[in-house]
Structures are given as structure tokens and as C-alpha cells.
């Protein structure tokens, strides 16, 4: 039974409860700090919900089992952290190519390699988009509180089902291990998988998209005899690896079903933007300090603004351009050496916005005071 009302939960626990509420009934994972509580809570909760929990031999197997379960009709999820996320990259590509809905939680920790296992970081922003080989698009969401971890886990499942794509839910050690009061409403909007009509069984083309660019997904065992081919394939599922036009058409469709839906997918948050001379851009745990710093700056009479990316990919170009049109300066605060900075500069440089950077690595998040100091420095520069 799903929980509702007021709840006091840890971030990782909130992900589990939301997944259950969204209809997730299959979880495969491998222990890794700081994501292990998700597997541990799933191990308790899944059998209670008539679902399956399995601890696999590694992360390659975990995402593999999730893909298999998804074709058996399940809403399925795995959770990991940086090293495991690296191991999952090939199968993320497989999920993209075979349009297999699934949710992958990456509770970010410090890297590269084993790095600082128990410390937070935001080092996977780029890997979440570019980690697998080849050309593709997927959806990456990054909440910043326990409440939002709950809400966005549900959204992650909804988007995965709606667009038949893997959705990456980024988290980080700070929000994952934080406990907060959250509110879970009685009713939730849950999107179910688009299925082919039984009467189409005879001549079903599993990879022929509807008008929205997304083909309905048959379930194994329902008699549709689907060919799920991770090589380049035509509408029947048969591979053809020498036809350049077929490959181009397939990849463009897979990318465009996401890119053409940016209005539906991309979410951002902006505060104090109307008169802002400087806008702090951030995401995840850092955005909590960023908002506090902006409020402190406002108290000091500095016209600071706050802009947060909730959807990391596809990138919020349009929203950021709107902010860029109304401000002169931006400050990107992030727990890596410049991943978000690179993307923000790509978008706002043509608009003549000066972009300052406040990177921080080593495991500790930015304090509001540190961000405030950078705001003050940036505002006073060149004046």
C-alpha cells in the first residue's frame, strides 16, 4: 500500500515510495554508497507490493534485468552512484535504441573512479547525457529536496512511459541522505504505457511510430511476436546495418521524440528574476544554498536572482535565453569543475551575458556565505 499525507522521509526512501506510487514493481540493483538505501528499502517494500526485488551481481546485470522486466510489462527501476553509473552506460544506450521505458537513479558522489565514496558531487551532469556511445537524447531530472525527489520520481516514471525512453533521476549524497517533511497527496497523475491494439496483432509493426513519433509497446507473451533489436532496425525490427538512410531516419526519430517535446519535458525554477542584475544558476543540492545566498544579497540591496535547472537534459536553452535577455551577469555555482558552466556559456554567450563561475569539489557543498561573496564580487566587478 502506498503511503500518503505528511511523511518524514530520507531522500532515498522518498524515491522508493514514489516509485511504488508510480507503479514500479521491479527493482534490480547492486549495493553502492550513497545509493544503497534505495535498494535496501526496495528489498523491504517490493515483496509487500507484489513486486520483485533482486540484487544482481553488478550494475551491468542490474540495468539488464530492468530492461528485461520492462519488456515483460513492468515499470522498472535501478539505482546506483558514479562507478555503477559508468558501468550502466552501454545498456542505457540499449534502452534508448530499443525504446525501453525505465528509470535509473544516480545518487552522485565524488569521482573519478572510486573517488570520495561518501561525499556529494555533481560530476555526472555530462555523463548522464553523453555517457553511452552514439547519438541519442534522453531525459535527466535533478531534484533538490526530499519532497521533490518524491514528485520527480513519479514524473520520471511518467516521462519514461510516455516517451519510451530511459529517464535518469539525478540525486546527490546530500539530498539523498537528508530527512525532510514531505506531503504526499491522495491522488497522483500516473501515466501508463501505450499498448498496441489486440486487433493489430496480425500485422503489427513494433517500430512504426504514431504521429507523436512513439510506437506503442507490446508486452512479451501477448502474441505480438516483437523483434527487439538493438542494432539499427526497420519498422519490423529487422536489422539493416548498411542502409545509411534507415539509420539516419531511426536516430533522428529517437532524438526528435524527445527534442520536439521539450515544452512538456523541461522544467526550471526562477525567483527574483524581474529586476535581477545578476542571476545565480545552479541545480540539485547547491541550489538550496544558492537561494539562501540570493535572499541574503537582496537584504543587502543587491538585485540578485535565482535560476534553477530541474530538468538537466534536454537542456533548458529557451528558459535560460529568457533569463539572459533580462540580466547582465550570471554566476554558475556547482560541485564540479565546470560542467554546468560549459552548457550555460554555450546558451548565453551570444546574448553578451558575463558568466562567472563558483566551482567546488571535495565533497562539501557551497555555503550560502560563499555564494554571497561571489555574488558581491561579481556585482562589483567592472563598475
Amino acid at each position: 500500500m502506498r503511503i500518503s499525507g505528511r511523511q518524514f522521509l530520507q531522500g532515498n526512501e522518498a524515491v522508493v515510495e514514489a516509485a511504488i506510487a508510480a507503479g514500479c514493481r521491479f527493482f534490480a540493483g547492486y549495493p553502492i554508497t550513497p545509493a544503497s538505501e534505495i535498494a535496501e528499502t526496495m528489498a523491504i517494500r517490493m515483496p509487500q507490493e507484489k513486486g520483485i526485488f533482486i540484487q544482481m551481481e553488478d550494475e551491468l546485470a542490474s540495468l539488464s534485468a530492468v530492461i528485461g522486466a520492462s519488456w515483460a510489462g513492468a515499470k522498472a527501476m535501478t539505482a546506483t552512484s558514479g562507478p555503477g553509473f559508468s558501468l550502466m552506460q552501454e545498456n542505457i544506450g540499449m534502452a534508448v535504441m530499443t525504446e525501453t521505458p525505465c528509470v535509473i537513479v544516480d545518487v552522485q558522489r565524488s569521482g573519478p573512479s572510486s573517488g570520495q565514496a561518501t561525499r556529494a558531487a555533481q560530476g555526472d551532469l555530462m555523463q548522464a547525457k553523453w555517457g553511452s556511445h552514439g547519438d541519442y537524447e534522453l531525459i535527466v531530472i535533478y531534484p533538490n529536496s526530499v519532497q521533490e525527489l518524491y514528485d520527480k520520481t513519479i514524473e520520471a516514471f511518467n516521462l519514461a512511459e510516455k516517451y519510451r525512453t530511459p529517464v535518469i533521476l539525478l540525486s546527490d549524497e546530500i539530498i539523498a541522505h537528508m530527512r525532510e517533511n514531505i506531503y504526499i497527496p491522495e491522488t497522483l497523475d500516473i501515466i501508463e504505457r501505450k499498448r498496441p491494439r489486440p486487433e493489430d496483432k496480425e500485422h503489427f509493426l513494433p517500430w512504426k511510430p504514431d504521429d507523436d513519433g512513439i510506437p506503442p509497446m507490446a508486452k512479451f507473451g501477448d502474441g505480438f511476436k516483437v523483434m527487439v533489436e538493438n542494432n539499427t532496425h526497420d519498422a519490423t525490427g529487422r536489422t539493416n546495418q548498411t542502409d545509411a538512410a534507415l539509420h539516419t531516419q531511426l536516430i533522428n526519430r529517437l532524438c526528435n521524440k524527445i527534442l520536439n517535446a521539450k515544452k512538456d519535458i523541461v522544467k526550471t525554477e526562477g525567483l527574483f528574476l524581474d529586476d535581477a542584475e545578476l542571476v545565480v544558476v545552479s541545480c540539485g543540492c547547491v541550489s538550496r544554498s544558492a537561494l539562501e545566498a540570493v535572499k541574503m544579497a537582496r537584504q543587502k540591496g543587491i538585485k540578485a536572482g535565482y535560476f534553477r535547472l530541474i530538468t538537466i537534459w534536454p537542456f533548458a536553452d529557451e528558459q535560460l535565453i529568457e533569463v539572459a535577455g533580462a540580466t547582465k551577469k550570471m554566476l554558475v555555482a556547482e560541485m564540479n569543475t565546470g560542467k554546468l558552466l560549459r552548457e550555460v556559456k554555450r546558451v548565453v554567450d551570444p546574448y553578451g551575458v558575463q558568466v562567472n563561475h563558483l566551482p567546488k569539489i571535495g565533497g562539501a557543498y557551497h555555503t550560502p556565505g560563499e555564494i554571497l561573496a561571489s555574488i558581491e564580487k561579481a556585482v562589483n566587478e567592472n563598475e
Partner: protein
Amino acid sequence: MSEVVRQHPAFKYMRKQFLPHIWCPGCGNGLILAAIIRAIDELGIDIDETSFVTGIGCWGLTGNYINADWLHTTHGRALPMATGLKLMNPKLKVFALTGDGDLAAIGGNHFIHAARRNVDLITICSNNMIFGRTGGQVAPTTPEGKYASTSPYGNIERPFDLCRLAEAAGATHVERWTVMHPVPLTKAIKKAIEHKGFSFIEVLSPCPVQYGRKNKFRNPSVLYNWVKEQSVSIKKAQDMSEQELEGKFIIGEFVKKENIPDLSAQLLKLQESFENKS
């Protein structure tokens, strides 16, 4: 196509529009495919209740030819994907078709764990003792001293005995045959379909193009005869010394354990324990 070919009894289970198949002349894979189809036919199983999960490699392409749900996975991952599929829908008869490179090299870890868990899968490994599809590189199953494109001076490593590996890892049904044994192979697959638990059928399937050419087997029949000559029944092997068994392929039933619950049964029991409480 002659009338006889058009009416072949296997065709009702096949995507015959994809024939002729892509396997090289002399390849053993078609014989394993025939055995699978015979087993399904003889047991009278509805093909819609089967699913095929295959790995990367020549044998992984088998899904093209069987008219059933087919998941073509990334290299080495057939077993964990089949595990997810089977656990979520225990009613499906899930075949995991995997080559020796796919299963024993890149997917080796998944192999031992699927066996240990006793997942109710029908795993059929086509063992050609080489990486065939990528051009004849040495595999964990290449016999010592044999040549491959990445063992140009002869293989200096010792090969896996896949059946013994499966047995040690906990598989509850293990058999090895060659493609020259179509009758016992079909029987083994039928047993695997009816077995509740992890079935592992290894089939020695000669690859004349990659393995044969590199190892001076003049033509497919010479290679086939060599595989047959090297094969010793498990019964006969019991009376042979280690020296006599050097380089031989032991064929027959290695393991058949009944009454060990498969993973789906265990999960169902766990789920039901909560139903009773509520």
C-alpha cells in the same frame, strides 16, 4: 522454393521471410535451431508462450528466425535480461541463446550467478570454440594449442569446461551435446523446457570458416569428424583416466536435480507471505 520446402513442418514456428539464414556453409547453428523447433513442436508448446533472449554473435542472430518475442541484447547480457523478463512473467518459457564468447567471456559473471540463483531459464550455448562473428579471435573455450587470430602461435591458456562450471555454480540441469547428436540434443532441450530451474545445454557447434580454417581442418566434414571423434559419453568417461580424457569433449547429462525451487517460486512464496498477513 519446391513444394516440399514450402511445407516444412518447422515453418509454422519461423519467420521464413528472413530465410535463407546468414550462417556460413558448414555452420552448426542451423542444426541447434532445428533441435529447438523440434523440441517445441514435439511438446506442443504455444510459441506465444515462449520468449527468446539472445546475446551478440552469430548464435545471437537466431532470434531472427523464430517467430516469437525476441530481445537482442548487448554483448554478454542475455542472461541478466532473460532473468528480468522471466521473474516479471514466470509463465513465459524463456530461452537464453548465447555463444561461448558471449556467455563465458564478457558474460561469465552473469552465467555463474544465473546458475546459482536457479532462474528458470532454458540456456542454450552454441560453442564453436572461437569468437566467430568478430573474425576468429581466441575464446575462453578455445582448446589449448589451437590457433585463432589472437592466438597466432597457438592458445597458451586453458579453456573453461562450461558444464562443470555451470554445475559448480549450482545449475540444476546441465547437458552437453554436439550438433552431430540431433536426437539426444532435442531430448535435452525438451527436458530443459520442462525443467523448473536453470537449464544449461552446451552444444558443440563447429565453425569451419573461423575455427576450421585456422586449425587446418580442410573442409567442414573433417572438422565435424574431429569434434565427433573427440566426444566421449559421460558414462564411458567415468572409466577413463585423466590422461585419456585430455582434450576430449564429454557429452551427456551432467546434472538433473529435481525439487530445488527456482527463483520465481521463491519470490512468489515471499510475496504470498505478505498476502496472508494482510
